[in-house]
């Protein structure tokens, strides 16, 4: 652990250097937001969605990237965030239509969207805190299966708890609060949270344990506790992503929060590179961009005098194919486990 206690003779310069990866990512997100603001409204919605995925992938990264333990629970935490904000922000008259059996103390709530979104994050964190406590002892495939089970449980419960979630029916009439500026700010917020966390002593210990759990445990690191902290924080950020998603769509359906979403988020993280924050951000943006290009191609893109068009449905096939090829040729992800430092010889403190 000497590495962590390393004190530099020039601390201020050192700190500034350490902030470069953070600042670069923020600049990228701001540029994406600014570029999108010049586009059409449909285009803007796509970029907002990409930024929301970015929040969710960064949330997933906080746990998976630092602990090295696989989690399938993303869509569960997103569902918790989405349903929480729906229940507390929907207008009471809407709720009496969609959720006639809602308990009275929830039925009368009519919070502003921002409060609902934050509450969504907190609810996800709360549930992660309770369920995560025993789960954090597991690693490897067992941990994966436990979080997969958690996802199935949330899906089944929310899909059948008619009085509170409306079961299989959609909840409608949420405020369309999330526009480009909000999405950009939340994306920056998620990146900042993840960065501050990964620079913390606890996260460094957790990453040390990822490299060598036996040695880390022997040197007195309480892996379980640090994993739990990462899990709860990860759930908070992911829950917020779910709430943002709800306030983008204006509706909430349980079908949105199952395997495909979890796969997509995991794929984004792995494609970007699960071992660095830059990887999480790049993966989310890259796969969103790829998806968008394929969507445009399916609709037909005029190039010179030709109309380049691929048959509908082929886009999804190509997407999966690209995903496979990236995994084959860049198994460590696009970022290769590094942060953005813009210098050739440094490979960031991430490998510590």
């Amino acid at each position, binding site marked *: 652990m000497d590495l962590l206690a390393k004190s530099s003779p020039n601390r201020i310069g050192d700190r500034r250097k350490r902030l470069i990866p953070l600042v670069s990512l923020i600049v990228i997100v701001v540029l994406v937001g600014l570029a999108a603001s010049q586009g059409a409204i449909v285009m803007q919605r796509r970029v907002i969605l990409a930024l929301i995925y970015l929040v969710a992938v960064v949330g997933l990264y906080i746990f998976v990237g630092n602990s090295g333990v*696989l989690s399938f629970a993303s869509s569960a935490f997103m569902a918790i965030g989405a349903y929480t904000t729906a229940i507390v922000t929907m207008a009471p008259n809407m709720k009496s239509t969609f959720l006639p059996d809602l308990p009275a103390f929830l039925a009368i709530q009519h919070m502003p969207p921002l409060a609902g979104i934050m509450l969504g994050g907190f609810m996800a964190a709360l549930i992660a805190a309770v369920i995560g406590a025993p789960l954090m*002892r597991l690693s490897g495939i*067992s941990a994966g299966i*436990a979080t997969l089970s958690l996802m*199935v449980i949330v899906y089944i419960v929310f899909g059948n708890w008619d009085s509170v979630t409306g079961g299989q029916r959609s909840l409608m009439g949420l405020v369309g609060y999330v526009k480009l500026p909000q999405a950009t700010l939340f994306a920056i917020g998620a990146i900042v949270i993840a960065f501050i966390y990964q620079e913390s002593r606890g996260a460094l210990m957790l990453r040390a344990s990822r490299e060598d759990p036996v040695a880390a445990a022997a040197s007195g690191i309480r892996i379980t506790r640090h994993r739990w902290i990462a899990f709860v924080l990860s759930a908070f950020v992911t829950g917020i992503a779910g709430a943002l998603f709800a306030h983008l769509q204006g509706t909430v359906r349980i079908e949105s929060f199952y*395997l495909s979403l979890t796969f997509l988020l995991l794929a984004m993280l792995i494609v970007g590179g699960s071992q660095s924050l830059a990887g999480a951000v790049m993966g989310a943006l890259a796969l969103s961009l790829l998806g968008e290009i394929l969507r445009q191609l399916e609709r037909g893109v005029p190039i010179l005098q030709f109309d380049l068009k691929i*048959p509908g449905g082929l886009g*999804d096939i190509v*997407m999966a194919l690209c995903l496979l090829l990236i*995994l084959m040729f860049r198994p460590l992800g696009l970022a290769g486990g590094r942060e953005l430092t813009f210098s050739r010889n440094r490979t960031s403190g991430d490998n510590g």
Partner: protein
Amino acid sequence: MNSVQIITDALSLGGIYALTALGIGLVFSVLRLANFAHAELVTVAGYALLIGVGLPLPLVLFMAAAASVLVAMATERLAFRPLRHVDQTTMLVSSFAVSILIQNIFVFFSGSRAKGVDILPALARQVSVLGADVSMVKLTTIAVCGATLVGLISFLRFTRLGLEMRAASQDFSMARNLGVRADRVILIAFALSGILAAVVGVLFVAEVGFVQPRLGLQLVIISFVGTVIGGLGNLTGAMVGGFLIGFIATLLQTFLPLELREFREAFLFGIVILILLVRPHGLFPARHLKERV
């Protein structure tokens, strides 16, 4: 529902899960790959039945088996072989990618809606067993699952190739140093998992009467859980885990109060989490779960 019906349900459902769990377990034991694309091996057998409607039954069954085996071997050669040296999580995610890829190919050619397939109308009747009405499909399922299990166990126990596969799953590097061909053993594991998936696909379609692109997905997720609670890397464990999941699911379906019955899968997966917390490496942990080099 009487006890004969409950036992029939539990055995047929458990048999389906056990065969699926074994298919997943076979590949895992030699490659350390948790192959989610196993779902599509089940689905492709279903689509082969759809294509073969009207042809003689033995031919249709052969087509189903051939389709699953070919797809299994193709995924190994084209996708998983180049990925052999990446870490487990990346392999797992690439198996999702393969799974989604094949699913979307089904959607592309056949649409996402369910299509009716009535392959074995003769099975759609009830017979009386010990005074209870039991569906013929379920009895057939039990018989076929039993026969397949016996076949698989005999192959693994009594043939040279089976011996090599078991050796590779216990200590891959040592097996290679004795001349066991890695590529061949892995390819055969995939082929076997394809056969198991085909059996499951045919039985499953016979029971539900339709195919759709995500036919195998839920089945494989539940069976995968069976593989893990049985003890990953241990084939006996996979089999027991599959049956156990089938039994628990049937018992929940039968004995949960009506208002909680729609939550049965939540209970099932809750029990799974409890089992994992008590036995993190499953009920029958593999003795020599070494990393493959």
